């Protein structure tokens, strides 16, 4: 039964569940809890996908991966590899199934390492570009440089485009804004932007996003992985907005967003680039900023956390034991 339950779980988590989550309204009211659930969906989906063929192949040797592996190990130790491979209990497709499981595990792990490596390399390349063109924010605003954190600095690019973004790093993170932005926004609006980017860095949203980007790279033909990347990215933006609103006025954040979007729209119109998404990206974030949905009740949040935990623990237990 176990391998079939795992396969069904992998299927459900790969297809209908992400679609349902994307359409749901409650993640706007509890973005942090929603992010935890998304991570559970990703982790559980991956584990189930790998465990299903492994469990199926090892069924003749014991219940669960632990029991079956122990049995095979004892056989190997006492009677050698050949006996293990030629054991009459193997189903004809048993070894191919195990190979499939191991290949899937290898593919997912390698894609995670590969995506991490590429992302860090691209960030470093971009940081090198920024380092040569940018000046410190204080200098650009005509202020004398105050003591800045050695782990986080804010730099200004001498370009007219309205730009604001952050580049996370292991030791050194930077927030980058453009001269155009500094000129266009009022001081409170600029402060709100910087607070938003700072929230991304302190909450390490880059690491959350990285896992889902890797997942998408590993299984690009599955629409759910693109849905997951988009949803997780948007939820981290909502969380960063929330952090910003603790100390900054909502008006300032919205105004800064509006200015930047308008400028980017002109740039997009001019260059004729188009986004390739089917649905309106960012709709959830705009809605959260402007409509301020009331938070989810504590009880419901606990349900989300409990579901996330169950999603990961149950397949882990039934496959191992």
């Amino acid at each position, binding site marked *: 039964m176990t391998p079939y339950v795992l396969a069904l779980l992998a299927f459900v988590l790969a297809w209908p569940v992400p679609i349902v989550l994307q359409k749901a309204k409650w993640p706007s009211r509890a973005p942090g809890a929603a992010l935890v659930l998304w991570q559970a969906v990703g982790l559980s989906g991956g584990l189930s996908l790998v465990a299903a063929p492994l469990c199926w192949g090892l069924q003749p040797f014991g219940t669960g991966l632990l029991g079956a592996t122990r049995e095979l190990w004892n056989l190997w130790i006492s009677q050698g590899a050949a006996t293990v491979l030629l054991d009459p209990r193997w189903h004809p497709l048993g070894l191919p199934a195990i190979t499939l499981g191991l290949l899937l595990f290898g593919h997912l792990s390698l894609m995670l390492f590969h*995506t991490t490596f*590429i*992302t860090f390399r*691209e*960030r470093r390349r*971009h940081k*090198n*570009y*920024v*380092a*040569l*063109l940018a000046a410190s924010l204080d200098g650009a605003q005509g202020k004398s440089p105050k003591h800045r954190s050695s782990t986080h600095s804010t730099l200004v690019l001498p*370009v007219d*485009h309205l*730009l*604001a*973004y*952050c*580049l*996370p790093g292991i030791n050194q993170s930077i927030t980058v804004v453009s001269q155009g932005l500094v000129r266009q926004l009022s001081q409170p609006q600029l402060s709100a*932007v910087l607070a*938003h*980017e700072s929230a*991304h860095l302190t909450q390490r*949203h*880059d690491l959350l*996003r*990285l896992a889902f*980007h890797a997942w998408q790279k590993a299984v690009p033909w599955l629409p759910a992985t693109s849905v997951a*990347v*988009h949803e997780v*990215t*948007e939820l*981290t*933006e909502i969380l*960063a907005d929330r952090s910003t609103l603790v100390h900054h006025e909502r*008006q300032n954040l*919205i105004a*800064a*967003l*509006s200015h*930047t*979007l*308008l400028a*980017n*729209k002109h*740039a*997009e119109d001019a*260059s004729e*680039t188009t*986004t*390739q*998404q089917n649905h*309106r*990206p*960012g*709709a959830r*974030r*705009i809605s959260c900023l*402007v409509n301020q949905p009331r938070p989810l009740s504590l009880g419901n949040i606990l349900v989300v956390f409990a579901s996330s935990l169950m999603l990961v623990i149950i397949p882990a237990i039934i496959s191992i034991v």
Partner: protein
Amino acid sequence: MGELEQSIMNTLWQAAMPLTSNEVRDRIGQQQKSTPAVTTVLTVLGRLHKKGFVIKNDSHRPHKFSATMTREEHSVQLLNDVLGSAVDKHAVLASFIGSIDPADAAKVQQMLNSKKK
């Protein structure tokens, strides 16, 4: 060290011709209060070379250095990273506008105005 990298690149961009490390040092010294040591300049030039920003012409001594791309080309590369349609853009950097469609700019402005009332 980042400031010296900037100074050296600015010098090479302004000169728009290959310079020796001594010439780079002298030009920096003219523009700033302190003149860096030529060994320091060489070290940083080496680093910039490794990053792909400087070409070294070592066909005859003294070796000459020049920028691989102009400041404008540098800017274009940078802007392409941020504003371009690279698939991995959201993985590499977290843009303030995130994945909001710029076409929604008017909508956001409208909502802002209606909330003010």
